């Protein structure tokens, strides 16, 4: 067979191969084009992913503005926003404990905005300069899988020391204090209840022997316990209730009798927002009754910061809350995370 004839016989196969390749490329480019809206804002969300999506969808329905939502744990979000390119990436930060917002405000990352909706929020749940506003409250608790506990012959924990039981070796799931706001709240809570950094670190080191894996995000431990991979997790109770409402009925929520920490989940306009006007509209929506009730329409309600909304009775009603101000927790953040980074990780 001549070279020319050989080339001709190869032509249909090559055309088919090239066509397939180009078709895949065209599909990818088209899909990217379709997901790039006309006017959109980027929201960095540090709450439950389902809830983040519900917030984004609710805002889009109300305003007609598309939302590009990215979920990152609070610690990762703070690190990302502190980088030059991260500042230009997002317009709004939504969810995660207020102490991280205090740190962000000190770094000049947040824009002041006194939302008209913020009048219904108690002063202890918002920044006096308007740089952040609380939109929900979460209480740190234990989320346990009753089936796994039964197998281990244990009751659901009601004390921080219960987590140190030898039977719970590699059966406790906790978030990484370096990446997760929930994880940092857990560390801060130990500092608050035990009185010194050294005692808090000693407790965390003893707990470390029972930890299965430090998760990046604060809501992940609830999912891990729901799957039965671990018996107990330390997480904000709304994450556990979400799993229960999704059908994992073997989960139980308990709180430590020594007292526990809590978060003021917040929202803020970022100082380098690309579309500040749309960002402010988003913050209005997040603080509004509709925004704060979005959780109730999804999987789990969160304790609201607005007056006039009835809270879900399962969320933290039985918990003994330790003293907490976002400013104190923020002031200790660098010191405590450095300690965890050097001594525990």
């Amino acid at each position, binding site marked *: *067979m001549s070279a020319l004839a050989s080339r001709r*016989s*190869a032509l249909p*196969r*090559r055309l*088919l*191969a090239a066509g*397939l*390749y180009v078709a*895949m*490329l065209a599909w*990818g*480019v088209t*899909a*990217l084009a379709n*997901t790039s809206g006309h006017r959109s804002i*980027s929201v960095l969300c540090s709450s439950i992913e389902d809830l983040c999506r519900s917030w984004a969808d609710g805002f889009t329905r109300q305003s007609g503005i598309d939302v*590009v939502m*990215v*979920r990152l744990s609070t*610690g*990762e979000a*703070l*690190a*990302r926003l*502190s*980088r*030059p*390119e*991260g500042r*230009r*990436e*997002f317009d709004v930060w939504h969810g995660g404990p207020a102490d991280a917002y205090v740190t962000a405000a000190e770094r000049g990352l947040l824009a002041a905005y006194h939302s008209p909706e913020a009048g219904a929020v108690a002063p202890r749940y918002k920044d006096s300069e308007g740089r952040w506003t609380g939109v929900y409250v979460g209480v740190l608790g234990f989320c346990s899988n009753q089936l*796994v506990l039964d*197998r281990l012959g244990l009751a659901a924990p009601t004390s921080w020391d219960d987590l140190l039981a030898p039977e719970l070796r*590699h*059966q406790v799931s906790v978030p*990484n204090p*370096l*990446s997760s706001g929930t994880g940092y709240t857990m560390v801060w809570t130990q500092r608050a209840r035990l009185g010194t950094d050294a005692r808090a670190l000693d407790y965390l080191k003893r707990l470390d022997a029972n*930890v*299965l*894996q*430090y*998760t*990046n*995000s604060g*809501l*992940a431990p609830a999912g*891990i316990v*729901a*799957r*039965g*991979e671990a018996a107990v997790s330390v997480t904000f109770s709304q994450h556990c209730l979400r799993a229960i409402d*999704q*059908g994992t009925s073997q989960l139980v929520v308990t709180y430590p009798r020594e007292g526990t920490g809590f978060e003021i989940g917040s929202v803020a306009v970022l100082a380098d927002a*690309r579309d500040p006007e749309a960002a402010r509209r988003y913050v209005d929506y997040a603080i509004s009754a509709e925004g704060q009730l979005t959780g109730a329409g999804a999987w789990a309600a969160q304790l609201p910061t607005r007056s006039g909304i009835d809270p879900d009775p399962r969320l933290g009603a039985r918990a003994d809350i330790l003293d907490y101000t976002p400013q104190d927790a923020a002031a200790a953040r660098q010191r405590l995370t450095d300690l965890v*980074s*050097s001594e525990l*990780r």
Partner: protein
Amino acid sequence: MTPRLIRWSIWALLAVPAVVLVLGLLGTLATPAGVQALGSVLNTQSGLIGSTLAYCLATAIAGTGLGWLLAHVLAMYRTPGRRVLHALCLAPLVLPSFTFAMALIVLFGHSGLVTGRLAPGFEVYGFGGLVVAGTMARFPLAYLNLSWAYRRLDTALLEAAGELGASPGRVTRRLVVPRLGPPLLSSFLLLFGDAMADVAIPLVIGGGYPTLATRMYEAIASEGDLTAATAYALLLTVPAVVLWLLASRLGREQSNPIGTAAPRPARAPAVAGRLLQVLAWASAGLVLALLLAVLAGALSDPDGGLSTAQVWSLLHGPDTRPFAMSLVLALVAAPLAMALAFALTRAASDELGRLRRARRTLQALAALPPTVLGLGAFLALSATGTWLRDAGLEPRIVPWLAIGAILAVHLVRFTPRVALPALRSADALVPLLRDQAVLLGARPRDLTRSLVWPGVRTEIAGGGLATFADTLTAVSSVILLTNAQVPLLPVRMLADIDAGRLPAASAATLVLSGAVLIVTGVHRLWRSDLVRRRLTTVVAR
């Protein structure tokens, strides 16, 4: 343009991004804070270095052993189901590296399908699970390397030894094993270096087991500590470069692009051979079980029924963007790496000395761990972002910068891997090119079309396919470069696994491997013609 200028221009296409990535790292380290961070890491993290070395050593030994076992069984014995066994050996190459870690949790986790009922106390998290997952993800590299070495064995010598009465075991001990020393060692070093740079598998199944790569990621993603991250990166780079250079000297020259045909069998196995066959099939069975666990997870719904909803949402739903972005980047990066590799091969193939210099340069580039390349790109991206911001330029350029940085990392990482096998094949072309050019006065363009391209196209095409698969499933090199506008599916999968959404991650694995299989089909459609034409030429001769 003169030939010299053309050569320099081609090299610049690769060298400029490589230098930018490396300079970003050195610039961060060459400050008082950088030196202090390096000293601090060296003084306080000896345990971390030890645990990293233990993980890499165990993975490299186990992966090389498993690769040898499968290559040996397929090359030396008539084994039923050879094609299936070969396909199972190659399957991990089309999956994200942490897929098996995820599948191990599904099967052998605390609530795993197997251990949940049969062995409730079994512990898959930590060192043991990490080594098994790392071995399953990496043994195909050793398998390919050693299969190629087996093909180069003198079969006539082996057959003669057998006909003269040597038992199969004696033939293996006296003739085969001594000739496999260098490829075995090079496979070990290759797997060791690959494990050192890995971020994803320890994050998924490490259970808190610390490694340098995960600490580097944590330092930058959670703590925002660039100098500490760069110090960790340096600790990763030095051994990786030394190991890769050793591997290059010890037989990487024999490595080949992805093979699509199983090696030829030689003989019926004796007792020892049968035992090896059983072990090989048991290993392949584990690969198959893990793949089925991923498939089942991808097609399951929360109520335990069958559903394609999760797969569909990646193809046409709210989660399409990460997959589309990963796919487009891989479809663009692969041909770019192939074109650049061919241009480099052509530019170096006029002269043996030039070929050797090109090979050495590319080997050094290929030695850079992907995690470190990603960090270098991240630092460069940060600096560029700051400069653009200060200059008041349009911030919408930022997503394009991220896309450019990801493509640059892929090009610097994969162009050498495509070009090195082509440069080895080009060795034989040098005298031909010189003779044709000098004696017959052939034009450079004609030499390129009639000599160089036919001589290296198999290597370039195979390397392009491997590049597509690796870029589509890459995590370690791009984990720091994704952002809101440029999301990548494998990085998102890590977040899904962290949050316990294993079915969503399984669905993403299925979609990614499907895309690799389609492009493999495209590759075979193109190559089947080449193979047929080559056979026709041989018959005609």
